[in-house]
């Protein structure tokens, strides 16, 4: 996901970062506004679409009954897949086949700390498996952050049917899954973090890099921050070095930006919920932009 930039473009971006005034007028630690729409894919347990700049990510969550992880028999589990839509970016994006698996494993790692004991149905035998399938519709920079926001929003939107477990008297267990749309449980997503990606340009780091800025970043650090401000994952994925002191500063700003992002996401979701309660038949989904434009 990089562009080929000329030396002059790169110097221009670096000079902007050094002066704490980026090409779109932001400061180094300013985040662009993002939009969230949740519950927009009908045959899922939960879904969300997050747009930040031109980057556009759709996440669908499906809950299915399956077997728990042998190492954690009393917990449910997550399965994460990430796909780039074939229209997501220019051909330049295809130079790295690893990106999809890297994104998926990063998301899976950030979810490791989440307590899933509520998803256990029969310990060691049956549990809810939460399939998180992300589709990157447009990749135009900062995919990690947008993906993690979309995952959190989709999990917040996820409703899991209640299950009645009964013993048939012969030691066999029968499960009855409720089909009442109101007889559902929500996921406890308080421990789900967001990823803040910091890109090093020159001697400084910036958050929420555009694709141009990403293309001239020397190295990138992904930090997963939860609502308490604790780090759930820190990883530096790209080549190129970073000075320890700059790294510490970066971690500090990741903590602030991450907490801010989480509260912003929370507020956006609440606002959406309220709007839906007031206007249940309002236009939502993929054609709303077109309709409001015409």
């Amino acid at each position, binding site marked *: 996901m990089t562009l080929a930039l000329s030396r002059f473009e790169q110097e221009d971006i670096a000079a902007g970062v050094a002066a704490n005034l980026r090409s779109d007028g932001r400061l180094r630690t300013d985040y662009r506004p993002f939009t969230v729409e949740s519950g927009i894919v009908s045959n899922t347990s939960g879904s969300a679409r997050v747009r930040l700049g031109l980057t556009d990510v759709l996440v669908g969550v499906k809950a299915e009954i399956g077997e728990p992880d*042998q190492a954690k028999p009393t917990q449910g589990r997550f399965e994460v897949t990430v796909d780039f839509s074939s229209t997501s970016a220019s051909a330049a994006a295809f130079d790295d086949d690893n990106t999809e698996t*890297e994104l998926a494993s990063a998301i899976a790692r950030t979810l490791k700390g989440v307590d899933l004991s509520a998803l256990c149905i029969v310990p060691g035998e049956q549990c809810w498996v939460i399939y998180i399938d992300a589709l990157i519709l447009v990749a135009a920079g900062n995919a990690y952050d947008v993906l993690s926001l979309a995952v959190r929003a989709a999990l917040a939107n996820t409703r899991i049917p209640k299950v009645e477990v009964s013993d048939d008297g012969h030691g066999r267990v029968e499960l009855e899954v409720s089909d009442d749309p109101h007889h559902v449980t929500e996921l406890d997503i308080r421990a789900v973090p967001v990823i803040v990606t910091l890109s090093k340009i020159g001697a400084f780091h910036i958050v929420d890099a555009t694709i141009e800025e990403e293309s001239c970043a020397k190295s990138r650090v992904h930090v997963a921050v939860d609502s308490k401000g604790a780090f759930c994952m820190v*990883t530096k994925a790209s080549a*190129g*070095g*970073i*000075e320890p002191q700059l*790294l510490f500063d970066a971690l*500090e700003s990741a*903590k602030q930006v991450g907490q801010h992002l989480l509260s912003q996401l929370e507020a956006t979701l609440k606002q959406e919920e309220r709007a839906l309660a007031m206007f249940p038949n309002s236009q939502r989904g993929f054609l709303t932009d077109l309709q409001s434009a015409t």
Partner: protein
Amino acid sequence: MSTGTVSHANGSAYLELAGTRVMAAVYGPRENTRAGGLQQFNEQAVLQCDVARAPFASPRDDARIGTDANTSAAAADRQFATSVATALQSSVRLEKYAKSSIDLFVTIIGDDGGALAASINCCTLALADAGIEMNDMVTAASVALAANTNIVLWDPTHLEESRASAIATQALRVSDNLVTLLDQSGESSLKLSVKALEACSSMSVQLHGLMQQTLVSSLLERRKQQLLP
């Protein structure tokens, strides 16, 4: 630590830290024969890394039951290999070896904690043994973090890793003090993370000296053998 353990490789090294035993071999610089490698012209060498984990490498508790566990283990190995390559990439002078690939093969014989750091160190030694130009030797170290007591454990064992709230691994290019790889999984606070990374850095500096000594003594050894066959 020792170098030159695999005779037919361009360079190789073996590293042992109690129960953690890692072997690395470097093949190259050689013609890039991987898929797509021949079609496109590369001004820089490509650094590739493969990791194989012996089936008996880790203790039994990460059970290998079912196909699910195996596929996720394979994914973890790929991630591991990418991390090793990332750590070393910025140090190897890839621009010196146009059109070629440098292939690193890591075998983890035993994993008693800190396998990633050990693999990176072992690869660095193997690269140096192969005579591949580097800006500096990258050294890596890992720590285990305990969130409730604010303790940072240096070079943890597998048991300590499994009980810690977080594990951090950092690779450092010692001469110009640049972090080339950073990887922390598990929960920790800002303060604790910073403390952990500082601990990793000071371990890296110590390791750097040790690795230099190993290289020098292996060279001296080799010269002696050549003079007195």
